[in-house]
């Protein structure tokens, strides 16, 4: 019996909990310990993705890991398919990149940081493999708790206030999920997602719909969907840059994945109006996110508002509910993780060099760090959607999917958003290269050591390579979409004595 699905959660949890013990032995070991944890998790995530892809290629479908040997629906099962495994892989790679950057920037004294990152990774992995709604809720709470700590652990004035607001919204969202779980359990008597997928169509309509609305609002709050986004720019813009990158690039994808899993698999797709609602919310997020980013004066807040808009693209793809739309969303999840992590990390270097994250203070920073600026501009081009870069492929897919689903207005919002984002990213590039250096800032963030450029340049290269050699990632995205949309195969795998994980 192969225990990879459980290990995906257990490895980061173990490394998080054992980190203080390692400190007792020698404080210098802390970084290597954290690094080993992230690497081992990456190996597990890669193995899991290979297993899921091989099972799908062999026509077996999702792999099921019954915890303690108790079969579903009585026991708790972990379910691994290509969508969940993709989330695990994105998490592992994002955490690795952030960890390399942290080695160059976070002071070794801050041991809490490494524990919190491992906890975040454990929560994300749990979301990726959980097969019942309550585990999903618990792991989402774990992600949220880890990010509360990450946002506030530097204890700057700004981050304390942002963290408090984030926590209030997070607690509200958790409660809404709990109400939704209560409703589905009361009407179906089960928590297993596969069993719910079978029983929900026959359940009382009002209770099922109310639960769906509560789920969507709860996940939407965590994902920063407009109009529930007001906490996001401050929370994502106020921590250290490695944290901002983890939050915007990785952690937000947990809620997006949970949304897709519940709407597409458990509720069998986007009929009953939820698709319309998601497309409208996604379109609203695109417009509001880009317009708000346009008028920001703080570099990291600008990038955070851009995240609001990018989540809008992803949710619009989920709301379309077609194979192409969901694949575009899945591809954009991976793309956005690469591009936004690259943007936040390079912005971290540039801001630390300039001594401020205020846009009027970063003029001419390009002269101090030419390669970082090139990486920043490459990631900007990617996120705008300029053709040879990755963002273009997923946005093109999304427009194509929206038009073939007959949603012309929604599809037209994508190029509109692209134009707006081109305005503010080109303005940023202009200020970085030609702008006057008008303000000497006094932020405390230490300038990262030179090898911080390694993860930044790697991400810039990846955002370019994923645009050139897009067929592999796109096939993976289509695989994830197939697994999200095929509820019947999911149910058969979990309840019908399908393939066990071995």
């Amino acid at each position: 019996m192969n225990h990879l699905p459980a290990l995906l959660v257990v490895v980061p949890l173990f490394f998080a909990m054992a980190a203080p013990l390692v400190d007792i032995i020698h404080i210098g070991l802390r970084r290597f310990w954290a690094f080993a944890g992230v690497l081992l998790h990456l190996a597990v995530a890669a193995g899991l993705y290979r297993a899921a892809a091989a099972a799908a290629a062999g026509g077996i479908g999702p792999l099921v890991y019954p915890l303690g040997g108790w079969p579903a629906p009585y026991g708790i099962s972990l379910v691994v398919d290509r969508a969940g495994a993709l989330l695990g892989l994105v998490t592992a790679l994002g955490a690795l990149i952030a960890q390399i950057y942290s080695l160059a920037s976070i002071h070794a004294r801050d041991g809490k940081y490494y524990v919190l990152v491992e906890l975040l990774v454990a929560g994300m992995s749990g979301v990726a493999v959980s097969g019942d709604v309550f585990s999903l809720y618990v792991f989402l709470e774990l992600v949220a708790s880890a990010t509360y700590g990450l946002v506030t652990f530097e204890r700057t004035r700004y981050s304390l206030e942002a963290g408090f607001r984030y926590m209030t919204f997070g607690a509200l969202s958790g409660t809404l999920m709990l109400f939704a779980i209560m409703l589905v359990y009361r009407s179906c008597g089960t928590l297993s997602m596969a069993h719910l997928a079978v029983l929900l169509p026959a359940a009382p309509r009002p209770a099922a719909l109310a639960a769906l609305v509560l789920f969507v609002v709860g996940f939407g709050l965590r994902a920063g969907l407009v109009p529930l986004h007001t906490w996001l720019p401050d929370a994502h813009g106020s921590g250290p840059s490695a944290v901002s990158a983890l939050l915007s690039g990785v952690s937000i994808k947990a809620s997006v994945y949970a949304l897709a899993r519940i709407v597409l698999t458990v509720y069998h797709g986007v009929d009953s109006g939820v698709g319309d609602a998601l497309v409208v919310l996604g379109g609203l997020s695109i417009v509001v996110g880009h317009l708000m980013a346009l008028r920001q004066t703080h570099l990291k807040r600008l990038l955070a508002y851009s995240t609001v808009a990018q989540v809008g693209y992803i949710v619009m793809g989920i709301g379309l509910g077609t194979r192409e739309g969901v694949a575009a969303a899945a591809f954009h999840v991976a793309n956005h993780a690469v591009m936004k992590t690259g943007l936040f990390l390079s912005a971290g270097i540039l801001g630390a060099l300039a001594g401020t994250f205020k846009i009027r203070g970063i003029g001419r920073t390009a002269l101090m760090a030419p390669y970082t600026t090139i990486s920043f501009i490459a990631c900007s081009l990617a996120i705008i959607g300029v053709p040879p870069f990755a963002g273009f492929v997923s946005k093109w897919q999304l427009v194509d999917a929206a038009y073939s689903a007959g949603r012309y207005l929604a599809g037209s919002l994508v190029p509109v958003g692209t134009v707006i984002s081109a305005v503010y990213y080109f303005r940023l590039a202009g200020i970085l290269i030609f702008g006057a250096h008008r303000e000497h800032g006094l932020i405390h963030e230490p300038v990262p050591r030179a090898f911080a450029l390694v993860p930044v340049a790697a991400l810039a290269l990846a955002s370019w390579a994923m645009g050139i050699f897009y067929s592999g990632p796109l096939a993976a995205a289509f695989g994830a979409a197939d697994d999200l949309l095929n509820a019947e195969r999911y149910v058969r795998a979990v309840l019908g004595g399908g393939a066990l994980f071995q």
Partner: protein
Amino acid sequence: MTVVTAAYLAAAAVFCVGLYGIMTKRNLIRITMSVSFIESAALLALVASGYEAFGGRPGAGTEMACADPVPHALALTGIVIGVSTTALALSLIIKLYKNYHTLDVADIKDARRRWLNEEPEGRVGAG
């Protein structure tokens, strides 16, 4: 009105009180209390749904009728999560107070807006 209906209504009322508090109160501690209110509402609803015997449950309608333990187990987990979140929020409030010397959300927001427009950011001491 059965006791279960009464519990659901109470949960709805407590939820509304909490939501009202989150939206209108300016004091950080009152906001945290309101968050605890809505968490309690969810827990109350969970416990009530476990008490309600409905079709297909072991012992439903017989003298052996008992409460469904699953929602109660969920409520226990929910309590743990709620308590830890509240503790974290209260510790943040202490830090915020040491920093801004106020518990008023509007004052803190003003200070942040001022910072975003002009002042450089200062680090707060540990403690």
